[in-house]
């Protein structure tokens, strides 16, 4: 009898557990559970957004372990005050490296109102082109035109240029795109007896790489150093594709792009690409490019560049401008990288070489990443407009909320209170900071007390409507980096998008990467690489070019 009673109790508990699990999941699907987005219709008939779900990538640097909870709390307080009702913000921060894949799965398997389905999310320019005709995104052109921040815009064209021929706008770019510049280790330059101002042409650049490879720039008396490292010889899956090795690619653009006369072409099949592959092949053969470049991701490449073991490092690295000049320099300092003469290593920026200037005109400023709003397809714009007002309009309010997106949470990432702190205490790189009451300053990073917080999602220099509260993080290096890039950049070609490209993109990227790598390491010639591409992907490439040109003609 006891056993029967026990069996009944145990069975009931297990069944209840299962049913409880089912219950909670169905509740979430219904959109009423915590985490589901939603709003209510107020008495005056307007839509009140009470919960906002957003999906972000790694560009929101106030991560879960770096003060995101405080950021969210301060955002909710500030935006609730602005809107006149409470609003809850749910941030889903995805792995940066598989961002587009995870977004694709989320948008495929969910619908507005589901737990986890985003009301708004970040997309690259390429993703925007892929999604803007799917019906999943809301046309925010009217909301943008009527936004509160319009009167303070300093760069209106960044967003207006994204509009389709019929005036629709599916993405909102709060900043312009930014791009990469070439950094050189000053200590290595000195060691090989060269000056950055003397490097004006590709031949000068090549000679520099050769000196870094052969002339013992680290001063350890043996070989092992390389001229340059990058995250891939060319990043075929990340527009603008050529910006990690611009000196080699020069005027080539190994993907679909629109020529000045408006016609679309497949740049991978052009002579300029063959020439670029030949240059890369020669440098690889001469041992000037670190072979790890082929498989390196950005993290691996930059960590090798500022590694504390400089005996196998490189002297040149092309990477993002502005804030990254500070980050790379800080990492060199943190790793106690010294010049052969014993001084702390520093970086110098290389102005675009003649061949880049003669073709593109400068380093490429990529198309800006954007925020988009998902359309629930109910025929009403009420929900979407409410999302715009709560998220985008406040993001550029010039004051409290924009400061949150620019610098992070008050008294967590930045402060105006008097304080003193020391970075790297007790080391050679110890640095003390002291601020008076009322003085705006960045604090120590919440997840790394030995480094200074730099920024949150928006870059104060790149933003299209500046802060009006006078909060400026006075970092000479970042300012120097941003100024240098702004003076030396041109806009990158617009990303291509059509049905066939969306379908075949993975295969195209895969084949191009394979052939490019084979050509660079010398398994095949550049001409053979392009011929193989034409043989295997020629008809698909032609179809894509036809579709793109047809789209252009229709516009």
């Amino acid at each position, binding site marked *: 009898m006891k056993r029967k009673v026990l069996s009944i109790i145990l069975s009931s508990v*297990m069944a209840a557990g299962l049913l409880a699990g089912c219950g909670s999941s169905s509740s979430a699907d219904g959109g009423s559970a915590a985490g589901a987005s939603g709003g209510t219709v107020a008495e005056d008939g307007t839509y009140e957004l009470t919960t906002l779900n957003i999906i972000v990538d790694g560009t929101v640097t106030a991560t879960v372990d770096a003060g995101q909870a405080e950021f969210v709390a301060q955002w909710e307080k500030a935006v609730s005050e602005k809107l006149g009702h409470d609003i809850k913000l749910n941030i889903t921060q995805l792995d940066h490296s598989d961002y587009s*894949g995870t977004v694709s799965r989320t948008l*495929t398997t969910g619908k507005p109102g589901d737990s986890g389905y985003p009301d708004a999310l970040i997309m690259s320019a390429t993703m925007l082109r892929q999604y803007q005709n799917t019906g999943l995104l809301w046309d925010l052109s009217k909301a943008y035109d009527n936004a509160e921040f319009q009167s303070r815009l300093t760069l209106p064209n960044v967003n207006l240029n994204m509009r389709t021929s019929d005036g629709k706008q599916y993405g909102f770019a709060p900043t312009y795109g930014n791009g990469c510049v070439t950094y050189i280790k000053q200590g290595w330059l000195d060691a090989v007896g060269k000056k950055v101002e003397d490097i004006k042409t590709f031949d000068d650049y090549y000679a520099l790489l050769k000196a870094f490879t052969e002339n013992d720039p680290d001063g350890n008396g043996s070989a092992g150093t390389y001229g340059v490292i990058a995250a891939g010889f060319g990043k075929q899956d990340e527009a603008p594709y050529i910006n990690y090795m611009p000196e080699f690619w020069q005027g080539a653009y190994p993907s679909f792009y629109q020529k000045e006369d408006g016609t679309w072409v497949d740049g991978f099949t052009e002579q300029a690409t063959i020439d670029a592959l030949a240059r890369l092949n020669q440098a690889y053969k001469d041992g000037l490019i670190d072979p790890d470049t082929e498989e390196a991701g950005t993290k691996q490449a930059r960590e090798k560049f500022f590694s504390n073991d400089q005996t*196998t490092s490189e002297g040149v690295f092309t990477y993002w401008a502005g804030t990254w000049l500070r980050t790379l320099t800080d990492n060199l300092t943190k790793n106690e990288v010294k010049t052969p003469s014993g001084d702390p290593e520093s970086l110098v920026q290389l102005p675009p070489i003649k061949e880049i200037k003669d073709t593109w005109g400068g380093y490429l400023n990529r198309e800006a990443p954007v925020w988009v709003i998902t359309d629930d397809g109910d025929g009403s714009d009420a929900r979407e407009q409410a999302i715009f007002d709560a998220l985008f309009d406040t993001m550029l309010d010039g004051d409290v909320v924009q400061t949150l997106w620019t610098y992070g949470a008050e008294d967590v990432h930045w402060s105006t209170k008097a304080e003193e702190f020391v970075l790297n205490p007790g080391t050679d790189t110890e640095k003390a900071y002291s601020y008076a009451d009322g003085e705006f300053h960045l604090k120590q990073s919440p997840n790394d007390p030995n480094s200074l917080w730099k920024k949150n999602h928006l870059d104060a220099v790149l933003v299209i409507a500046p802060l009006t509260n006078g909060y400026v993080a006075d970092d000479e290096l970042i300012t120097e980096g941003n100024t240098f890039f702004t003076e030396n950049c041109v806009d990158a070609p617009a990303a291509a998008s059509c049905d066939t490209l969306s*379908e075949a*993109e993975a295969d195209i990227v895969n084949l191009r990467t*394979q052939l490019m*790598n084979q050509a660079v*390491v010398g398994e095949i010639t550049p001409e053979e690489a392009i011929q193989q591409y034409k043989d295997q992907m020629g008809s698909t490439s032609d179809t894509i070019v036809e579709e793109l040109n047809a789209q252009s003609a229709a516009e």
Partner: protein
Amino acid sequence: MSKKETTAPVVHKKPLGLRLHEYRGFYLMFLPVFIFVLIIYYWPMLGVRYSFYSYKLRDIHFIGLGNFVKLFGEKEFWSSFKNTLVISIVKLLLNTFVAVLIAIFLNEMRSLLAKKFVQTVIYLPHFMSYAVVAAIFTLFLSTSSTGFVNETLKSMGIIKESIDFLHSKTLWRPIFYLINLWKETGWGTVIFFATLSGINTELYEAGDIDGATRLQKIRYITLPALSNTIIVVLILNLAKVLNIFEPVFVLYNSRVLEVSDVISTYIYRKTFLTAIPDYGYTTAVGLFKSLVGCILMIGSDIASKKIRGRGII
């Protein structure tokens, strides 16, 4: 024989309802498990219907066998199918063969301390994740100045130019097999070593009396005793040959795709590296893989029944 069957006592089963009532406690206990299995294992299987759909974002519509027609016409798919079979089967045979060799070697070791030490050392790699193993070997075999193997060979004057082990179409598979041997063979010896421990020592003593050498004892006592286990291991693993993914995924690259791409990595690329993937197509590839896996499983079951008298299912 038939007479014997007719005279056998007939068991009268109680009616089903009565049996259910009699064992209601057990059935009640089984019910949550049954529901759990249905929800966790069988409900998701309904998703296989999407292999007959085009499934891109919100555009989902029935296309019949369209995905399978496309699949069978894809050169890349057949290449990955062939690679899956070759890589898995060679890996299985190699790992089993070397595991047997090591097990015999360990069995012949006289020093218990040395035996335990060797066992511990060769078991350790099994507990490392493939991601870590791939990172270690990529670094070891790199052509950069950080590559230990190439730099050592060059400093010894054996080679002049670095060998690109992991990017060479001819070298990738041998290196892959070696890495797998390093990682899994030690663990693979466990089952053979257990079998060897169970061999009657009197057989070896009899061999000694008959003047058998050590090699003869291995040939005529150890190997025959191991043969059944070897066959069982091979059969059990044969059913899983199409499931290979992780070791290939962490070690392959675009230059060796032709010889390294397997079905699972093909599905991965088509699903996760495509901007807006067609989940219907990749489900179809997965379903085809499952069907072939089922056939292999049934074949293994039949082989198992024939060889050891009982199946594996």
